[in-house]
């Protein structure tokens, strides 16, 4: 399929066309970049580094109602994800899309999660290649990703200066090309080659790296290693590293009373860094301190997940490094894992 281009002058028009769907795009809330539903094309802020909260929240919302109930009534008003309608997430970074492809494996593993999978089915992902790395702590290339990576994406846009080069990567992406037929034009013939070179250049600008070979196999043997105490000593036990991680997917389910006699069952993000995450009904906590919780976070990403799904549950977006209040740095931890004996 021929490559297309979207002139920057027509981006507003294209977003207008896409707003017949549920359109999600990066936008500014004060100076913070967040993904949100866009009603007016002017709200979209595409010239951004990366969002603070990953786009995962539109596949796996931080809080979602599963059903509502009324005391004394056997009827449950179940959630119908269909009602959310077709969704386009426009302008997310390749790492965030790759993360969704990784998390898909979990939500379709021993049980097909109807909410997550239905939403994924209804969603088209339009990525924005990272011509420049969004932060010094990006390390996607160490995990098999790329600033121009297409994994998980339906369409990839590349900023060529005056226009975006648009490559449809899946059937959903091709369909989107048709939807935007009035805004897209044929791209110059040499753009494909140009984009390949830009991708190589962009990969070269990623400065942080880790050789992950052997880490998943090595981690189980380091269970009692003293490194965990050391790397977790400064941990505050907050949820920044997990909530802002595009691959973290743990949730809790709670019943919440809304009005007298009415309530809902909902699920919400949970974090293995929280103390009560593993507290048993008896009061016993098998992960009693931040040491065990930090060890779990690293093991889950770099050992259990690859063990089960053949892929490391980390895409190297760098958010956990950039935003940790006490500079706990996952690459520093992994370096220590590599060095440990």
């Amino acid at each position: 399929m021929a490559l297309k281009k979207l002139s920057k002058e027509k981006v507003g028009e294209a977003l207008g066309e896409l707003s017949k769907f549920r359109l999600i795009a990066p936008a500014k809330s004060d100076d913070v970049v967040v993904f949100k539903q866009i009603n007016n094309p002017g709200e979209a802020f595409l010239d951004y580094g990366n969002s603070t909260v990953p786009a995962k929240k539109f596949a796996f919302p931080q809080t979602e109602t599963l059903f509502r109930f009324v005391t004394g009534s056997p009827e449950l008003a179940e959630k119908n994800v269909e009602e959310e309608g077709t969704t386009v997430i426009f302008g997310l970074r390749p790492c965030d899309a790759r993360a969704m492809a990784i998390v898909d494996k979990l939500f379709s593993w021993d049980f097909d999660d109807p909410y997550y999978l239905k939403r994924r089915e209804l969603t088209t992902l339009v990525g924005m290649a990272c011509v420049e790395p969004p932060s010094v702590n990006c390390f996607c290339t160490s995990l098999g990703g790329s600033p121009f990576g297409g994994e998980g994406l339906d369409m990839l846009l590349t900023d060529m200066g005056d226009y975006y080069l648009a490559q449809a990567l899946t059937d959903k992406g091709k369909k989107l090309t048709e939807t935007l037929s009035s805004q897209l034009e044929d791209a110059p013939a040499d753009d494909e080659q140009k984009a390949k070179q830009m991708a190589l250049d962009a990969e070269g600008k990623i400065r942080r790296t880790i050789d992950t070979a052997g880490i998943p196999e090595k981690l189980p043997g380091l269970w009692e290693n003293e490194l965990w105490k050391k790397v977790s000593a400064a941990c505050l036990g907050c949820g920044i590293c997990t909530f802002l991680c595009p691959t973290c997917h743990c949730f809790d389910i709670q019943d919440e009373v809304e009005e007298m006699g009415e309530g809902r069952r909902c699920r919400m993000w949970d974090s293995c860094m929280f103390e009560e995450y593993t507290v048993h009904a008896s009061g016993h906590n098998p992960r009693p301190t931040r040491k065990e919780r930090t060890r779990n976070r690293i093991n889950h990403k770099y050992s259990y997940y690859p063990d089960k799904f053949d892929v490391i549950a980390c895409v190297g977006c760098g958010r956990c490094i950039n935003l940790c209040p006490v500079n706990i740095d996952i690459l520093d931890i992994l370096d220590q894992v590599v060095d440990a004996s």
Partner: protein
Amino acid sequence: MVDLTKLREMAREVISREDVREFIGYRPGTYGFRARPAFVMGPDDADELIFTPACVNNLASYIVLEEKLPVKRGEEPDLRKVAVMVKGCDSRALVQQMEEKAYDRERILVLGIPCRGVVDMAKVQAKFPDVLEVGDIALEGDKFVLSFNGSKEEVAKEELLADKCARCRYPTPLVYDELLDAEVERFADDDYADVEELGKRSAEEKWAYWEEKFSRCIRCYSCRNVCPMCYCEDCVLDRLQPQWMRRSVDISENAAYHISRAYHLAGRCIQCGECQRVCPVDIPLMELNRKFYHDVEELYDYEPGTNVENPPLLSTFKVEDREDFIM
């Protein structure tokens, strides 16, 4: 300026004492200009200690964050002291914790750092976004000098200074066993102009302002966890049966969370600003805390964390206490 040789020597001496378990200080971070908390457990660890204007963390939080596991049968609890480095502002957290009888003075050994100001790391990050190699920041007169990649850059102090430092009343720690440098005289004061200004808005304007901010909250609880005054052994937020606060993340619960926390800090917040610093979505929490701080000071002539002998404000009653705002 803190003499690093002296600091490390002192740390070695302190950690070698039989009655000291650990020494909490700072060490260089993993990238850019960051510094991070250091937990010195033996004399060899002391060589990495630093103190620079990048040492923004309030280490007093770690005294109350300590995790106490049940003592095993036949073992004795470890009652040795914890040594901690504190700036003027941080020392007030220790004072307030002790005012509230969180622990005994004998449990800690305080190494005070008279401080002329630290940077706002977000401002540093915005100005030098591409610096990956570990750099250094020093305060020289009215300039911060940033060294990185073999080069040096001078930036006017006010451009990178943390807001709290521009109105710091207590640059020299108010509690210490030893000072690591000469005392620093008060060089600034707080006129609460920002609080007065924000207070002028209508209720609708205030709500629109906070609604935008609270809507961003992801309830990671980093503000609570980093707060040196948030040390309840059992926080209502972690209680699920019954749920005192819903786990749902929406504007209603988020607003309730932040407003409740601000109330719980009235007369207790010592304005270290850590909550606002750590917030990943830039919620200006200190605007709430400073409003309460200002009210408490005006109404009761009380500043939290300034005197260990003071009883906590909310556990005292004086006949002349103002009550005209109650009814």
